[in-house]
């Protein structure tokens, strides 16, 4: 019998030792030098970090009725590279989405790898898209901002972009409060996406946005908008603004400018309609500004209130001839008569006695030339010529409300000051916020400072009541209530000529009631009414909104104030 070949056996053994030695060596390298790399690879395969979006806070009216909400929605997307039948699939998807066929077909035939077919669609519609089970077409969760009352207070609320970020109005101003802070979840997931038991699972919870509680009264806002639209159309005007303010707190109960827009479909409207003209647009106020001239004269005690001025229907100042609104013979008028009749010439004579320095001082103290402190995006402070630039003509024109430019809110704030006993109170649109736990955090109270004494405010109130009782504000009368207010009819400046359009006016009426115990200020401004005058175009709007406010706010009548010294016989 032959002996086995020992050399070959040894060689085979050595080969096996080398082979297994190599395997062992490789194992050792993997377990030592490369350990960290493979542990990390495995970790990255299992561990997913997901952003937890924060729910955007709601915007509510003063009674917590929702004005802006966030709803769940879905985006419909497609990967055109995976779509097998662009023509057929486009027809099915377009039918479900209610879209036109051509754009959908174009998107499905495009060369990219990701396209949106529709954004922020209703979840029920998205479910129907998913139910089609079309290759390369799916849905992603998202949110959608919804304004349940449509165009109600749209310019105040503003709107958000597709990504949910505020772009205008309170949505923009309170973006930081409303947006909240996104959270994060890090978890080890199995192949099917299910969290692995006892695996890593850490959550940093999202902090939801806080709700913003506005000062708006939803029902009053609706009624004010309804009447504003009717007034603009009845007077064949270009537009208008309406505001309702609580003089004791500065709360703006209603604020709107016509034309407005629906924030649910803001892209369908002109950008001009987005503007909250009550704070973003300034105008020369006209005779409503005479209240400042009167208040300054009374506060400074420049002349006794029963002093009679000899007032013609026109007066020469520098190279300008200033007219009253209608021709009249020379008349003796007290300050009360001048305000009631809205005499420009009378106002010029009062301002002449007051002087530029004092009138300029009161114009600024009543808040002109600077934003109101509302903080609203786009708010302007208006234009007031600096004292150093005042000429005799400036003194004259400012006295009756031309030559200065103010926002409707600034002008309304002057009347709020008088109604508030001579104390200026910053207007505000937000009462506070509500956090995720439902706790209400009140906004700081409005800043206040005294402009004129309570006695001066009371005297001016008598003059304003006289305007409504016997002067140019008859259309603002409300049975059972004494209204104090002022009409305004101002020429609109022509930027091309530096002068004024001959036949374009801003008509206004601003007032408060009850005169002796004011509970509400209403400001009505109509832009280019064919009826021209504040007493005709704006006073009726004031009256309608004020009457509704009486019911809505439960305002009781109050004892009337007396009338100021007057000379004109209106009997």
């Amino acid at each position, binding site marked *: 019998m032959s002996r086995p070949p020992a050399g070959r056996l040894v060689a085979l053994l050595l080969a096996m030792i080398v082979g297994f030695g190599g395997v062992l060596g490789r194992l050792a390298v993997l377990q030592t030098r490369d350990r960290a790399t493979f542990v990390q690879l495995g970790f990255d395969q299992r561990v997913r970090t997901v952003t937890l979006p924060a729910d955007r806070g709601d915007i509510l009216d003063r009674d917590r009725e929702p004005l802006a909400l966030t709803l769940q929605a879905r985006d419909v997307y497609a990967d055109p590279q995976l779509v097998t039948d662009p023509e057929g699939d486009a027809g099915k998807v377009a039918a479900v989405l209610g879209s036109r066929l051509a754009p959908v077909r174009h998107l499905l035939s495009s060369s990219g790898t990701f396209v949106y077919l529709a954004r922020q669609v209703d979840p029920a519609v998205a479910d129907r898209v998913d139910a089609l089970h079309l290759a390369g077409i799916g849905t992603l969760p998202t949110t959608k901002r919804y304004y349940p009352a449509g165009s109600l207070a749209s310019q105040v609320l503003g709107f958000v972009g597709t990504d949910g970020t505020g772009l205008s109005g309170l949505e923009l101003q309170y973006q930081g409060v409303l947006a909240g802070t996104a959270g994060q979840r890090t978890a080890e997931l199995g192949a099917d996406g*299910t969290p692995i038991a006892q695996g890593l699972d850490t959550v940093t919870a999202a902090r939801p946005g806080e709700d913003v509680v506005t000062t708006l009264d939803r029902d009053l806002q609706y009624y004010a908008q309804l009447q504003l639209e009717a007034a603009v159309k009845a007077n064949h005007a270009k537009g208008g603004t309406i505001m309702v303010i609580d003089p004791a707190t500065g709360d703006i109960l209603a604020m709107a400018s016509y034309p407005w827009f629906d924030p649910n479909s803001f892209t369908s409207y002109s950008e001009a309609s987005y503007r909250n003209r009550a704070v973003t647009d300034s105008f020369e106020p006209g005779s409503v500004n005479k209240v400042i001239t009167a208040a300054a004269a009374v506060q400074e005690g420049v002349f006794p209130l029963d002093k009679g001025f000899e007032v013609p229907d026109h007066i020469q100042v520098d190279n300008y001839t200033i007219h009253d609104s209608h021709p009249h013979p020379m008349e003796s008028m007290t300050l009360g008569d001048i305000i009631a009749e809205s005499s420009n010439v009378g106002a010029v004579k009062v301002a002449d006695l007051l002087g530029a320095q004092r009138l300029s001082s009161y114009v600024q103290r009543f808040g002109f030339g600077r934003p109101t402190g509302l903080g609203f995006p786009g708010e302007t402070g208006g234009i007031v010529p600096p004292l150093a630039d005042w000429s005799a003509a400036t003194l004259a024109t400012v006295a009756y409300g031309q030559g200065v430019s103010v926002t409707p809110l600034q002008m309304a704030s002057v009347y709020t000051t008088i109604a508030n006993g001579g104390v200026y109170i910053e207007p505000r649109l937000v009462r506070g916020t509500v956090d995720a736990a439902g706790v209400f955090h009140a906004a700081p109270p409005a800043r206040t400072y005294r402009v004129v004494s309570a006695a001066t405010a009371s005297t001016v109130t008598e003059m304003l009541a006289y305007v409504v009782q016997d002067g140019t504000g008859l259309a603002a009368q409300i049975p059972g209530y004494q209204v104090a207010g002022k009409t305004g009819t101002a020429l609109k400046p022509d930027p091309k000529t530096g002068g004024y359009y001959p036949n374009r006016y801003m008509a206004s009426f601003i007032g408060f009631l009850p005169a002796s115990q004011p509970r509400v200020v209403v400001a009505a401004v109509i832009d280019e009414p064919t009826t021209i005058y504040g007493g005709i175009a704006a006073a009726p709007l004031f009256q309608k909104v004020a009457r509704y406010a009486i019911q809505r706010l439960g305002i009781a009548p109050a004892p009337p104030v007396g009338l100021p010294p007057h000379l004109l016989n209106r009997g």
Partner: protein
Amino acid sequence: GFVVFAGLLVGTLLVGIVSLQAMLAQTSFHTVQLRSEIGALADRYDVLTSEAARLSAPDRIAAWARANGMQQADPAHTVIVPVKALDGAPGSGKGGPGQDAALVKPILGSAG
């Protein structure tokens, strides 16, 4: 004997550990399901809230009212009722019910 005992012990421990893992996995599935249900309920709450807000919107109510033949109420009338004194002097607030009713009736009748 010892081997059998050790084998039984190890086997029991293994079965126990595997069972525990299975229970934890099941709990994990249940948790995911509950989270999904919570999310769905939160979505449903949002939908109902928005629906309530839409239904209570003033313009919708006004449109429904008009469509159903309703008219806006007239503005409230305010009636100032003079109070007569027992001695006939006005404003003293001491008039009896019969006297006050006699003063109010013609006023209310003329308020329209």
